[in-house]
């Protein structure tokens, strides 16, 4: 793969190869009068270890950007390098591999496979990566321990609270040690206690050096990140770095 490590463009911390390098990406749906430019020339670079919040009203293109960043969709034009790999022109099978190896998803609606234990849910990405059973088991247990759910490994999703389900989802996102954690409104369906819980966990993984991209429309959620990118009508409206708000009084679990 072509390593594009040359610095100079906008964005902080380009001493190393960026995790995400999006260049003039467009995503256009429909044709002619019905043409919708969901993304209209977005360029973003995200360095390893950054904790970035992507904000915008509905229709601003943040969901489309998330699909592109998550290799769930390919841009109409432009280039997207994930961890140095040009993924904007990959076929479906290659996309699946990239999703499996490089990205950990956390969704608003948890998206656990029902009727399947928490442990099996966490193991699932490793299964598709072809990891053997014992190793899978060990790593999934470790991931559940990291989110404080080691004792709930055998529970089915419907036996867990919303906050617990989302923690299982985070464990599933982490278990493959992905380059990027992509969280799409992870606290959108949670009460304030569970929200604080989830954000603390994300903070902790940020401090451990994980690259996190979080999509949200809540300012206090975005404030936990170190950088906020605002989208409007498929374009980057603003891109500002800030220090992540200190969790302060909220106590944190020991990892």
């Amino acid at each position, binding site marked *: 793969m072509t390593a594009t490590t040359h610095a100079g463009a906008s964005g902080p911390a380009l001493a190393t190869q960026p995790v995400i390098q999006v260049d003039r990406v467009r995503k256009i749906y429909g044709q002619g009068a019905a043409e919708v430019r969901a993304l209209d020339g977005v360029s973003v670079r995200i360095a390893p270890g950054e904790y970035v919040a992507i904000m915008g009203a509905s229709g601003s293109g943040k969901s489309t950007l998330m*699909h592109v960043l*998550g290799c*769930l*969709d390919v841009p109409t034009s432009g280039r997207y390098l994930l961890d140095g790999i040009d993924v904007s022109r990959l076929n*479906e*099978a290659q996309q*699946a*591999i990239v*999703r*499996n*190896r490089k990205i950990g*998803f956390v*969704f608003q609606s948890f*998206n*656990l*496979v*029902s*009727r*399947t234990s928490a442990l099996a849910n966490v193991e*699932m*990405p490793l*299964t*598709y*990566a*072809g990891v*053997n059973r014992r190793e899978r088991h060990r790593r999934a247990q470790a991931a559940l321990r990291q989110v404080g759910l080691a004792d709930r490994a055998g529970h089915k999703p419907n036996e867990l609270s919303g906050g617990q389900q989302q923690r299982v989802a985070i464990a*599933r996102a982490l278990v493959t040690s992905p380059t990027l954690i992509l969280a799409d409104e992870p606290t959108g369906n949670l009460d304030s206690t569970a929200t604080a819980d989830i954000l603390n966990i994300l903070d902790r993984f940020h401090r451990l050096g994980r690259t996190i991209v979080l999509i949200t429309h809540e300012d206090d959620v975005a404030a936990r990140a170190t950088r906020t990118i605002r989208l409007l009508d498929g374009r980057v409206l603003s891109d500002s770095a800030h220090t992540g708000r200190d969790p302060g009084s909220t106590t944190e679990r020991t990892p």
Partner: protein
Amino acid sequence: MMLREVVRFAIRGLVANRMRSVLTMLGIFIGVAAVVVLTAVGNGAGQAISATVSSFGANTITVFADTTTSSDEGRDIRPRELTIADARALEDPEGAPAIARAAPIIQMLGVEARYGYSSHRIETFFGATPSYLDIAEFAVVEGSTLSEDDLAGARQVVLLGRTVADELFGGADPLGERVMIAGAPFTVAGVIVERGEIIGQDIDNLAFVPITSLQQSVTGYGPVDAIIAQATGPDQVNAAEAQILSVLDARYGITDPDDRTYQIFNQATLLDAISTITGLISALLAAIAGISLLVGGVGITNIMLMTVTERTREIGIRKAIGAPRGAILGQFLLEATMLSLFGGGLGVLAGVAVSSIHIGAFQPVVMPSTIVLAFGVTFAIGIFFGAHPANRAAKLRPIDALRYE
């Protein structure tokens, strides 16, 4: 390694919807069981008919006088008749070397037999020769069989079938007793080994007397009904048939085969014809049962489409976290195939169990090839009827699938 996991996912999917899985399997189960049972019935019937035909003796050719009268320019042509002399001529080692023996027989149907105050209707009353008994494999279980002396001396002796002996004598010993058959007295020389039933026919309701005695005391010295010729070996049957034609044509001065006054009936040819017909019947039965199998297959497509729709979100999740298309395809294809194979396997077991029941006159026979075929077909049904739903699942785009409510 991956395959094992996909199998596990598929099993989990089936177990999660136990009731639905069982009902879907039921469709295949019924179809396969029906195919197995009906082909077994077809085979059993065919084997029973073949056994009946074979019971007339191995490698035999039967010669009948042509009993049809044809009109030739307004003039009736009376059927010609076969005689004991014809049979003797067929045993000539010069003229008919492929024929080992030729036995003339006379058959009388529905003949009254009396002993004291008891009476019985004998289904078939034979005038035969010792060689006929030998060809048709009628052995005696009590007393002694007909001898050449009985034949030459036209002795009034009779061999009774088991049914006749039981009806006339109850439990008493019939040997040496005198019975009246067709108005003539015969002394019981022996009782024939019991053969049981073939296709509902009691084949023990018969009696044999020397053909000469029958002619002397009942039918007169006229024609015989048929001559049973036995070839010297299985490979000599066709040669024997040709020799019968040439010997009899010569005796009756026939030059044109259309003028023949007798008919030849080759057992091997008949067996071939029977096996062709029963094969067709079996195939027809299997085809009818196959329709229910088809319906079961459609049931699989139906339930799998439902499952895929219901689990769209799960499919989306799996794809989002990196399941390749093949893994999704494999999972749902396996679910369909397992439904089909489990249903089919149980159907085979049930079919074999039902086929072990004696149906009326014969026993259904399950061929091993039927079982192998049944498994092959159910496997194919799983793949075929699971392909569309599985493909639909595999082709889902993760973003659409995740959005599905």
